[in-house]
């Protein structure tokens, strides 16, 4: 277990240090790309609690990310709320809607769960288009106030945005760790591995699943709130199923399901890859599909799994909590 604990803490701290170190030299463009990568990591970590830890594939999280963005946008722009309060409200709103979605979706089993969440993701996108008075419809929500500057960063909004995003990622990562360590986390692991056995041990399967879904929705909402503030504008396209909704699955599967730190690697790779390899941009979406297919076929434990396997080859301390799809039962 110690090896696992080190990986769980060591790697994120390294990423954090690199990000903070890169901050002074980076120009606006690199800062923006890093901020998006950190936001996507927040989404990926919270989504991993549902997909990697509990074994449920939801395609409605693009929509929930949007709910957070529009809620925060509305509160800060029209009702004059302070950003931090609006972010909290956005997280609560997404958590609430996520819980409702979960209560409906968890009545189904197996493939129907994913199909139902895909349906909810598509319908949610339509609502962003149709509810024009609230969301600005296809024109998008304009004029969203930026993030209030932290002390010392008043003159440099791009750097300020990155630091705020990193703070949110740290909070999300820590919360996910607490969730994993908690009794609910253990229950989720049991649900992922064998629902019937979990029930026969008296685990309240319903509560565990609902907690995992609501947790991931809440932080998706918070990430949406930050995204809205740093872009000062949000349009429906960012929240469609095949945009963020699908990408978050790619982050987690490539990164390593169930490891929490793996998806951060996945998010950084997938967000920064097209920016670094200019040519890659041409086929970026194709690359997402191919990467996802490659990893699910040949390396279901993702990059994290590979890293752990390497570490396992060295000293003889086996074991990881990261058993993933290979052993998961039908959802």
């Amino acid at each position, binding site marked *: 277990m110690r090896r696992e604990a080190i990986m769980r803490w060591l790697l994120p701290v390294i990423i954090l240090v690199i990000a903070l170190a890169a901050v002074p030299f980076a120009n606006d463009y690199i800062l923006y790309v890093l901020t998006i990568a950190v936001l996507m990591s927040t989404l990926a970590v919270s989504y991993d609690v549902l997909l990697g830890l509990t074994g449920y594939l939801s395609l409605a999280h693009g929509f929930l990310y949007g709910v957070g963005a529009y809620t925060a946008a509305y509160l800060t722009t029209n009702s004059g709320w302070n950003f931090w309060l609006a972010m909290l409200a956005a997280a609560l709103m997404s958590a609430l809607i996520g819980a409702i979605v979960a209560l409906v979706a968890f009545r189904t089993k197996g493939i129907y769960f994913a199909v139902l969440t895909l349906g909810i993701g598509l319908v949610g996108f339509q609502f962003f288009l149709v509810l024009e008075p609230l969301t600005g419809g296809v024109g998008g929500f304009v004029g969203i106030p930026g993030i209030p500057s932290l002390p010392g960063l008043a003159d440099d909004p791009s750097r300020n945005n990155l630091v705020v995003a990193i703070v949110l990622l740290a909070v999300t990562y820590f919360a996910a760790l607490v969730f994993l360590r908690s009794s609910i986390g*253990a229950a989720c692991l049991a649900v992922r591995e*064998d629902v019937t056995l979990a029930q026969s*041990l008296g685990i309240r399967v319903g509560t565990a699943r609902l907690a995992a879904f609501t947790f991931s929705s809440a932080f998706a909402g918070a990430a949406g709130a930050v995204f809205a503030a740093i872009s000062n504008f949000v349009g429906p396209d960012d929240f469609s199923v095949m945009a963020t909704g699908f990408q978050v699955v790619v982050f987690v599967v490539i990164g390593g399901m169930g490891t929490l730190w793996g998806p951060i690697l996945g998010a950084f790779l997938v967000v920064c890859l097209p920016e670094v390899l200019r040519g890659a941009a041409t086929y970026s979406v194709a690359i997402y599909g191919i990467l996802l297919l490659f990893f699910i076929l040949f390396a279901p434990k993702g990059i994290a799994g590979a890293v752990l396997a390497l570490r396992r080859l060295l000293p003889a301390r086996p074991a990881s*909590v990261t058993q993933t799809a290979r*052993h998961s039962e039908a959802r």
Partner: protein
Amino acid sequence: MSLLSIRGITQRFGGVTALTDVSLDVEEGTIHGLIGPNGAGKTTLINIVSGLVRPTEGTLSFNGRENGPWPMAHAVTLGIVRTYQQTRVFMGLTARENLRIAHVAGAGDANAEDLIDALDLGSSLDRVAGELPYATLRRLSLALALGLRPKLLLLDEPAVGLAPDEIARMAEVIRHFHGQGLTVFLVEHNMRFLMELASRVSVFDRGRLLFEGTPEAAQGNPEVIEAYLGRGLKKHAGN
């Protein structure tokens, strides 16, 4: 005082009647054996008592209070915990993580140390369940059930597929926890294993309760022998 009383339980799956009007009592603090040929309805009864399946007819009551058939989640809160005929553990997790889940599910009062020692799991705690040998997995699945500190443990053929020395160790474990006040409802094929442990035994044949009494009485009873050892072997029954 009977801890568990089963009254008039019948179970039909479409045309097949698995259990017909079964009534029996399990006394508190005893090890109650359940034997019968394959397809006699033993596992079906366990599924009903554990709440996995709702019976077509009949009632159950626990600790004297009239509870009727109950869902699995409720059964566990009453203190009724079961194991499965085919070994069922969280294959993808390590033994330690398996135990932690039982620890969490049993509302956290289970001190794992005594379980680990009693079931000799110390050496395989950090190994992934999927990589453990069969006998260790059987003990792990038992540890999961015991981790919930049950009042009534429903054991579905704990000795199946084990080597003689492992069977002895399994009997030792059951005796150890029975000594701490655990009531056990033991379904088993292995007659000698059952006879050593059970103080009372119910014999099933084709879904009906054939006989109930002490293990010795059951061994001598002609109907039990006929049902259990098959028609043709009646004359060898005398040993």
